[in-house]
């Protein structure tokens, strides 16, 4: 099938995932000269690597599919089979094992150099390589053998083999342990310590080595793989030579599995001349509205362009071929956009509005057409009658707003003296709560002729990450609002501007120090997101003096006292801080007597609190424990007072009984300190880690604070991996228990059926698994969470840790 190197294809498509395959099918269908280059010996490696039998979902459901290959929700096998069939039937010109190593533009066309050294020429290149990256190779002679592999889909496939696992990362350790059940396993470590793996994995592998279940080779690296020497008695398929500290070691084996991590695609993509907006490893290259990158003629589709779902990727494959062939194509999303603009007119002209909207608001002007379309599709556009409340004080944020017509009033919160503030057309509001993860501070009410774009959290974060201009715009706006709200109430814009100019946004990793005791005190810090603890060192131990949540400020005590820092400050979790120059602040204090009074009151309060905490370090220890358990970022956590808990598991039963017989709470698992137990249950984080990488954006925050997973979940398992507290499980979504339901009385009198609240796992075969976790019993608002309700002794409590820390640090009895 391989084309002669001299022929110049019209289109070369790199990667045969959903986007690449769809493009190739369209090209084949229209008789366009093309070649599809795939690194692997099969199509669509990402989908190919899904677990056997996985149900692949076809989100987003609102988007119509327009492609020359078929795709509908179904099992992995069915989808792969359909694609393979379509590729053959349309006559796609595919080259397997054709990993592209280099792409350069030369003399009016592109030159694609394959790993094998072959060169392919094309007028246009469509890059569809996804974001999974390529596994790092051993780069030794003999690695091309079929028994050398870089992935392991099903450890149960192998038995009675001698298998060598190279590497000691998490993947390598997990593979070695899983394989050791049925095989003789060796694990090879280039160094002597296990530094790159999770603690739990290190403990498991160390035990396995100690017990002789896994053979360990440290300070060793693979050198070459050969056939076994003639007359070798081991009967193994090959011989691996290790280069160890004590000289070469020959290891007869059947299989080598190298888990050396994956090289992200970025390096390869950058080498093609494509630019990334910033250094953030999560950032993706920018493309034009026709998916063209900054290199003319080079297009990027699919996950690499920021479209993480199969349906989107396939539509793009179709569109890009139409564009390259010069046929006008109306994007598949036009009907959706029409609906978005319905707030302005009955039958809106999409293109006109796409021109008007960015002119209305500065922040929208930074996007290109494609980004803007995507942005508006993910957002909501609607008109709000004058006087209607947009959100209430105290509600949690899952979105922020852009005013595109009319205006909005941020009213003063009850009891506070800050004047109401008018948000004019073109401005944004609601970003403080979104970025800090804390509840809204003041209610927002619509003015005359108000039309809003409501931007969901993920869309906003994507926009911020892709554009430094937007980032700056939001930073300044946030800074001004936050300063005005917390530090300098009632300041006018001009005065504020001076302070904002002197301010600095910095971010800290969890546990990273912000300043140490004894440092010069020249700044005041306002916490934009995350939380901070102030501590004193007593010998080696850190005694926590104070906990400050997002929205609070710290460090002013020393500034006012004019002394160096009296205590150290450290980020409790990932934290962003706005620091303000102390002199600007002191100036203001002198000019504003009212401000001075509030600050004085706080000053007194804080010093008192610190003295208290120093006097009773056990409170600090309890606080330290809770912070270590991640409560510093929780908005609502389940705690169990073990001095009251009679271990009856009523809480778990109640959870199972109200959630389709799957308990989302594991009472016993989790840490305990001083009778305070933190069970494994969702904490509804301020900045939920689980939301980070959810392809259909199915994880949402309710106004009342709970983080919930919606039914659009595709079951990819990303959230399960991303939640640091292990509270998400993949379970069956509906209570699809095929057995007859029995009533409580039938059970009590005759022992029929399961006891109420029994966790049962009689799933029908092929049931679709989705992510499930605590939803705070959102559908039983009145009675509150079932676990707390059902606890007979009052051991189970739901707390907002902020209050908890307040109480701990104030030391009330």
């Amino acid at each position, binding site marked *: 099938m391989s084309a002669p190197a001299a022929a110049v294809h019209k289109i070369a498509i790199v990667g045969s995932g959903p986007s690449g395959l769809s493009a190739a099918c369209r090209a084949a269908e229209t008789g366009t000269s093309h070649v599809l280059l795939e690194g692997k010996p099969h199509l669509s490696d990402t989908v190919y690597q899904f677990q056997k039998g996985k149900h692949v979902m076809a989100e987003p459901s609102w988007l119509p599919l327009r492609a020359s290959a078929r795709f509908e929700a179904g099992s992995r096998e069915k989808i792969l089979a359909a694609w393979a069939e379509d590729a053959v039937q349309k006559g796609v010109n595919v080259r397997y094992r054709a990993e592209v190593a280099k792409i350069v533009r030369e003399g009016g066309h592109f030159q694609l150099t394959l790993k094998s050294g072959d060169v392919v020429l094309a007028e246009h290149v469509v890059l569809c390589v996804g974001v999974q990256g390529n596994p790092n190779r051993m780069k030794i002679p003999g690695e091309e053998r079929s028994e050398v592999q870089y992935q392991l889909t099903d450890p149960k496939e192998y038995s009675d083999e001698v298998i060598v696992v190279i590497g000691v990362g998490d993947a390598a350790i997990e593979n070695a342990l899983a394989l050791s059940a049925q095989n003789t396993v060796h694990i090879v470590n280039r160094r002597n310590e296990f530094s790159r793996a999770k603690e739990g994995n290190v403990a498991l592998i160390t*035990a396995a080595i*100690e*017990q*002789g279940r896994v053979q360990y080779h440290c300070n060793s690296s693979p050198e070459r793989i050969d056939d076994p020497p003639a007359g070798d008695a081991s009967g193994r398929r090959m011989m691996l030579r290790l280069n160890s500290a004590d000289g070469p070691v020959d290891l007869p084996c059947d299989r080598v599995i190298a888990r050396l991590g994956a090289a992200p695609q970025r390096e390869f993509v950058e080498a093609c001349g494509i630019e990334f907006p910033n250094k953030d490893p999560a950032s993706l290259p920018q493309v034009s509205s026709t998916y063209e990158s900054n290199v003319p003629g080079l297009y990027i589709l699919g996950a690499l362009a920021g479209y993480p779902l199969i349906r989107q990727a396939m539509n793009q494959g179709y569109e890009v071929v139409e564009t390259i062939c010069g046929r006008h194509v109306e994007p598949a999303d036009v009907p959706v956009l029409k609906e978005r603009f319905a707030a302005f007119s009955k039958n809106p002209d999409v293109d006109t509005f796409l021109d008007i909207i960015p002119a209305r608001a500065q922040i929208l002007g930074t996007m290109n057409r494609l980004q803007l379309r995507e942005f508006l599709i993910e957002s909501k556009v609607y008109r709000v009658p004058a006087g209607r409340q947009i959100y209430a004080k105290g509600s949690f944020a899952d979105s922020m707003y852009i005013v595109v017509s009319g205006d909005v009033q941020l009213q003063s919160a009850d009891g506070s003296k800050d004047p109401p503030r008018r948000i004019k057309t073109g401005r944004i509001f609601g970003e403080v709560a979104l970025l800090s993860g804390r509840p809204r501070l003041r209610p927002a009410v619509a003015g005359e002729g108000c039309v809003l774009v409501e931007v969901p959290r993920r869309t906003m974060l994507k926009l911020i990450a892709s554009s430094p201009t937007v980032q700056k715009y939001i930073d300044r706006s946030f800074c001004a609002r936050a300063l005005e709200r917390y530090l300098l109430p009632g300041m006018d814009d001009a005065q504020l501007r001076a302070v904002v100019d002197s301010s600095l946004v910095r971010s800290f990793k969890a546990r990273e120090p912000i300043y140490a005791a004894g440092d010069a005190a020249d700044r005041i810090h306002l916490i934009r997101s995350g939380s901070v603890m102030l501590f004193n060192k007593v010998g080696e131990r850190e005694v926590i003096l104070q906990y400050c949540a997002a929205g609070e400020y710290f460090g002013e005590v020393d500034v006012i006292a004019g002394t160096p820092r009296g205590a150290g400050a450290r980020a409790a979790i990932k934290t962003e801080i706005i620091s303000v120059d102390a002199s600007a602040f002191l100036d203001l204090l002198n000019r504003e007597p009212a401000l001075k009074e509030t600050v004085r009151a706080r000053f007194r309060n804080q010093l008192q609190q610190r003295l208290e905490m120093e006097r009773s370090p056990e409170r600090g220890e309890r606080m330290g424990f809770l912070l270590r358990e991640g409560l510093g970022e929780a908005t609502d956590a389940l705690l169990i*007072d*073990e*001095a*009251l*808990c*009679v*271990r*009856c598991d*009523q809480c778990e*039963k*109640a959870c199972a*009984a*109200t959630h389709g017989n799957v308990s989302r709470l594991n009472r*016993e*698992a*989790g*840490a*305990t*300190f*001083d*009778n*305070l*137990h933190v069970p494994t249950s969702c904490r509804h984080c301020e900045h939920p880690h689980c939301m980070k990488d959810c392809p259909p954006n199915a994880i949402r925050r309710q106004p009342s604070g709970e983080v919930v997973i919606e039914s659009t979940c595709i079951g990819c398992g990303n959230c399960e991996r991303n939640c640091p507290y292990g509270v998400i499980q993949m379970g069956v979504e509906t209570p699809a228990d095929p057995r007859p339901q029995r009533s*409580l009385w039938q059970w*009590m009198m005759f022992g029929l059926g399961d*006891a*109420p*609240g029994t966790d049962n796992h009689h799933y029908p075969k092929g049931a679709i698994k989705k992510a499930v976790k605590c939803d705070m019993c959102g559908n039983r608002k*009145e*009675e509150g969470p*079932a676990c*707390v*309700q*059902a*606890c*007979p*002794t*009052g*051991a189970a*409590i*739901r*707390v*907002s840790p902020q*209050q*908890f820390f*307040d*109480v*701990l640090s*104030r030391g*009330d*009895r």
Partner: protein
Amino acid sequence: MATVDRLRGLLRASPGGRRVEKLQAHESFFTWRRSYYLKLALALTVAISLVYLVHDPAEGPSGSTWLGYGLGTAGAGLIVWLSWLGVRKRSFTTARGPIQGWLSAHVYLGLLLLLIGTLHTGFQLGFNIHTLAYVLMVLVIASGIYGAVAYGVLPARITLNRKGGELRSMLVEIEKLNDTALSLADRIDPEAHAVVVRSIAKIRLGGSAWEQLTGRYRSSDDARSLDSFFAMKKQQFGEAVGAARARPQAQSKPQPPPAAGMRSGTTMFVIDHIFDRGSDKAAVTLNKLLQVIADRKELVERVNVDITLRARLSVWLYLHVPLTVLLLVALLAHVLSVFLLW
């Protein structure tokens, strides 16, 4: 209970009278809603006692005076309501109001029932169905009192005994120590291996119901035999090592005759071991094994304490509930006999 009180105190209020709403809910069922049901029960106790003292029927107090009827009706109603807790605590989906409140009421009104029931009898007890109902009621209440005390005292002791860990992880740890002990014993000799295998087979977590409740577990004589075995092993090692040290060139010379008390198979093994790995390694392995066995013993003991505490925490329900069922039956018989046979 000190911790409970401390926590409760910590969580209750904040200065300036501003109450922390969500945390305020953290009260044990003993003091729920500032001991509302305790106060209610006390008030009713005083009121009923006063009425009983004042009231002076002609034939003396009994179930058939107007007060007797009143107390009887209240008592029967109360018993049915108290039993309803079993249904209520399992109605997870339709539940309204925390179970904690129900339990608080259950405990204090259940205690009040003792007074109501007793006064209802007018102290006329005999050998009949009526007294049977009374006795059953007293037994249910007595078991309930045990239960309430256990709920108050035992949970904190369970936590203390677990040292911040979970039961499951303690069990996993025992497994792990077993595996490690086996592989260490493997490196010593087949005899050590056999002894360790036997000791693993003999580990007893829990035991008979009686052992669980009393917390006195029959020790398999394993501990002693393990100890003496290891003492012997240590001695053998000592002797073999001594011999090796005394004769640095022993390798090429014939082996020394086995010391007294040493079985020859083991001797050879130990000596080979010293030859292969040096005497230090052998001793280290043995010491490691001893440490592992000691750790395991401590863990097994703690798991057994845990089992005991949890057994004591739940055993009474096996009386409380069946006796409740009997009580309901006896109560029905009592009521029927009073109305039909009177």
